[in-house]
């Protein structure tokens, strides 16, 4: 259970939610774990649900409290929606800004700024932790290139230019990715980013991590009532969750790349976890995928202090924190969208 701003997150599985008087009551196998005044919350979000009483759903709908059900792994299942127009206004703002280049760029640049900042601090951390294993001057040099890009991004109001700066930074960062692989270099190597299909083990892991992250971010956006398909940096394309891809940019490095590196460097993945197809595509075996996803879920339980909110949460809620902050920005409460930045 976690209160993030004013959302109640139930992250323990098999919790039943009900209403007693003015309180949400949280029970697990007939044992009461807690109760909170319902009016404290703007939203309630439950992962891996046992259920919620119709009375609570009724009260949530009536009081315009967003009650969302996610699967245990964080996939969006359903939301109880009342008749209020609060969400409509939020979505209309989202759409309106997406049609305006300058307004879109203002949001997009903060996604990109954070993406590059987070990549930069991965490099810095590596240079500090493994000075004997990596080419420190090269890491320092790329790090300062990334800083230059970040400074340029802060004053850019042009989407094309943002995409250009982002592309350059990504190239510089991925040039060093292979050096950050410190174990089992014979089976884990990185030449360049490839996908559809990935043709080496590292790219296979990156692809899976990005897929898992995209699904978490999509859920988080839907949970706060945003449309995951209308983005600012990524243009609308049928079937593409553009806003989820936007928000994901800032989380790729910290949540996916670092996780993949950890799985490799801690020798949690072996060559037997992969199969190579005739066309060169590399896939994970069922066991390999299961192992990877299990570790991913465990990682989400680890805690951190959110850099902007200064609230202690677990990694699994980071996408939700960003979705809430984005909604707050769209509602005009914050002068800029505060992206997730991690040193």
């Amino acid at each position: 259970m976690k209160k993030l701003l004013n959302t109640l997150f139930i992250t323990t599985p098999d919790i039943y939610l009900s209403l007693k008087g003015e309180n949400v009551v949280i029970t697990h196998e007939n044992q009461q774990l807690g109760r909170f005044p319902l009016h404290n919350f703007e939203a309630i979000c439950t992962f891996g649900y046992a259920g919620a009483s119709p009375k609570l759903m009724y009260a949530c709908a009536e009081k315009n409290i967003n009650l969302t059900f996610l699967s245990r792994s964080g996939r969006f299942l359903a939301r109880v929606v009342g008749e209020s127009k609060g969400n409509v206004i939020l979505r209309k703002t989202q759409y309106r800004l997406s049609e305006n280049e300058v307004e879109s760029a203002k949001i997009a640049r903060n996604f990109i700024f954070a993406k590059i900042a987070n990549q930069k601090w991965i490099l810095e951390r590596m240079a500090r932790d493994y000075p004997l294993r990596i080419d420190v001057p090269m890491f320092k040099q790329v790090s300062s290139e990334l800083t230059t890009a970040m400074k340029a991004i802060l004053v850019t109001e042009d989407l094309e230019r943002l995409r250009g700066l982002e592309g350059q930074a990504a190239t510089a960062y991925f040039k060093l990715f292979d050096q950050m692989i410190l174990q089992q270099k014979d089976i884990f190597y990185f030449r360049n980013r490839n996908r559809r299909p990935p043709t080496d083990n590292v790219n296979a892991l990156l692809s899976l991590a990005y897929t898992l992250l995209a699904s978490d971010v999509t859920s988080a956006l839907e949970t706060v009532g945003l449309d995951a398909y209308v983005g600012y940096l990524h243009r609308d394309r049928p079937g593409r969750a553009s806003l989820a891809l936007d928000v994901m940019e800032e989380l790729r490095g910290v949540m996916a790349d670092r996780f993949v590196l950890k799985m490799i460097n801690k020798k949690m993945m072996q060559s037997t976890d992969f199969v190579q197809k005739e066309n060169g595509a590399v896939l994970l075996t069922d066991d390999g995928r299961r192992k990877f996803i299990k570790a991913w879920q465990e990682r989400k339980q680890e805690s951190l202090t959110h850099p902007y909110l200064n609230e202690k949460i677990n990694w699994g809620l980071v996408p939700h924190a960003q979705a809430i902050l984005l909604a707050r920005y769209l509602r005009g409460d914050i002068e800029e969208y505060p992206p997730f930045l991690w040193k």
Partner: protein
Amino acid sequence: MVNDDVDYLMLSGIQHFRFCSRQWALIHIEQQWAENVLTIEGQHVHEKADQPFLREKRGNKLIVRAMPIRSHSLKTNGICDVVEFYEHKDGVPIHGETGTYLPIPVEYKRGKPKRGQEDVVQLVAQVMCLEEMLLCDIPAAYLFYDEIKRRVKVDITDEMRNEVQSMFKQMHHYFDRRHTPKVKTGKHCVSCSLQNLCMPELMSSTTVRSYMERYL
């Protein structure tokens, strides 16, 4: 011109607006509403007064409860807890009654008289509605406070009427743009029932820009 009821604002909102324009917007534009002890008690006090169209005659006084009111010029509608009509030669005729009457609204409030003007502006807005509906002048009205069990007389000045008018103008302006304003936070936030939704701390924390620059 036909008036579109959809854009009429709830009269009682003016008390929220007077207390904090953001609080008003959260309730009336974003439709977020956190009931807390204060507001639940508030409803309780109202139950007595909330009996639609109950007319009661006491001597030369006609008492009407829960009277729907509106003003086309302010574009607002709402309900008066109690309107007392006094038989008076300078008054106006009332449908279904003989003689002429002067209306005096009485608004019921929990607690005791407040230092802020939020109860007063609501009462003035009610007065302005009644004046417009009945074509009369109402020089004074009352606030009844539950805790002191007494009514407090409020003289209605032109200055007050102007203020209420300009407040409604601002409210319509925000409402038309569906804009929730940012405001100065302060001591009054402690007693605000929407603190959890408003997150005043977000408005006073450091700028996003300086937060980002720390990572350069």
